[in-house]
């Protein structure tokens, strides 16, 4: 049952991603990206991380993608023109295919060189299956074990916001 649901939502995700590349008008691509974000949230739910799934919808699909859609609307980006000498299928599948090939190559090499046993996780991740995806356990990790990275990330985002405001300011 788990496998069936994973295949359905995974297919939805991959379908959305391929549709994103295949559409000519950027607004359709943005909507396909929203479908991808949503199906990622469903995959997180399948993994038992319900808090991350909800936050994925609220932040990614509900705020970041709104920004994308605003930009496309305000710049009035039209449908892209077809390049006369390029095959659309080659452009669509070329870059992702290259990345996929590299990823499989790296995985095979690391598997045979024994490098995939290195873990980069923190102290409290594998503590028990019952206290994994709910908000309380995520909060415990975020505000106790990983407090410094959390605060540093907040400062980083603040710097990014200030940078955007400075760069977009009109010269008086």
């Amino acid at each position, binding site marked *: 049952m788990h496998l069936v649901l994973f295949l359905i939502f995974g297919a939805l995700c991959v379908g959305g991603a391929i549709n994103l590349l295949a559409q000519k008008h950027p*607004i*359709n691509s943005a*909507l396909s990206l*929203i479908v991808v974000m949503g199906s990622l949230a469903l995959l997180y739910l399948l993994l038992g991380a*319900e*808090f991350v*799934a*909800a*936050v994925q*919808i*609220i932040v990614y*699909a*509900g*705020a970041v993608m*709104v920004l994308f*859609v*605003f930009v496309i*609307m*305000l710049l009035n980006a039209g449908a892209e023109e077809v390049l006369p000498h390029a095959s659309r299928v080659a452009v669509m599948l070329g870059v992702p295919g290259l990345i996929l090939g590299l990823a499989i190559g790296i995985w095979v090499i690391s598997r045979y060189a024994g490098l995939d046993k290195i873990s980069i996780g923190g102290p409290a991740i594998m503590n028990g299956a019952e206290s994994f995806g*709910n*908000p309380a356990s995520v909060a415990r990790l975020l505000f106790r074990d990983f407090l410094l990275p959390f605060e540093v990330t907040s400062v980083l985002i603040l710097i990014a916001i200030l940078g955007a405001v400075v760069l977009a300011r009109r010269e008086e």
Partner: protein
Amino acid sequence: MSIGTYILVSLIKIVVVVFVLLTAVAYTTLAERKVVGHIQNRWGPSRVGPFGIWQPLADGLKFIFKEDLTPPYVYKPIYLLAPVLSLTVALTAIAVVPIGPWVTIGNIHTPLQIADVNIGLLVVLGLTGIGVYGIALAGWSSNSKYSMLGSLRASAQMVSYEVALGLSLIGVLILSGSFSLREIVDAQSGTWLGFIPKWNFFKGQFVAFFIYIMAAYAETNRIPFDLAEAETELVAGYHTEYSSMKFAMFFMAEYANMFTVACLATVLFFGGWSGPVFGPALLRACLPVFWFLLKVLTFIFIYIWVRATLPRFRYDQLMAFGWKFLLPLAVANTMVTALVVALQ
């Protein structure tokens, strides 16, 4: 219970809730027109049946028979998608709202709620975020200047007030310790001194309640925050180019959002279904739902009352109010609540 029974019970609950919600939406339009009318010292609709009771029916028939015009210059796929998205999101948010306690009918023990997830509050906030797309895409796809401006203003307003809305609910979360709406209601049961109910409003969240109500009025694009769809400003804003059933879908989505906001206000700040329970067993089973509906109707009445009374904000006043006043106030409320709880 077995999976088959669970699915059957859930389907029955879904049908009942959707039916009740759509009827409530239709009669809220009538209530709005009558209440606004009485406040303005005139009768509202009173011809179509006693006290205008069949007016929503007449409105529905009118919408169905109106000419369903699709202008040739719109971007059709998204033009048709936008009202569907708005209405779907508006009708889905009611799924996590608890209406009453657990009931036992025959040998089926079930909560009066469609889905009791342990992230109920986050689901509602996420759906509100997705609701912005209905408006943004409607205005853009209509390919007309009034629609575009109206939808940009409305989306920017909704995104701004979502922040204040979310932050104002953190105080409630700290007091209840859970995102699940049923657990939030259960944490508000009981009374002090025998008659003051332990609602979050009386536990110190009155500032948060007012922030929530104001942010929710802005989220649902109601007066005093309805600049984006006011007739004297922008023709009709983002739904200028929509007619007949597509406009009716936007209309229903707005009233369904209003209903959801009222339900959330009672669940989060006023104890949901808590209220005096007395009498024989059948009355005891029905009274909690009655108290819940009474509180929800009170909030809808306040929505309509505010609509009839206040003028609307200018757009820059609106954005300044959201970012410069409500947001710092919500953060301050969070800090004070956290301090008080930590010192206990």
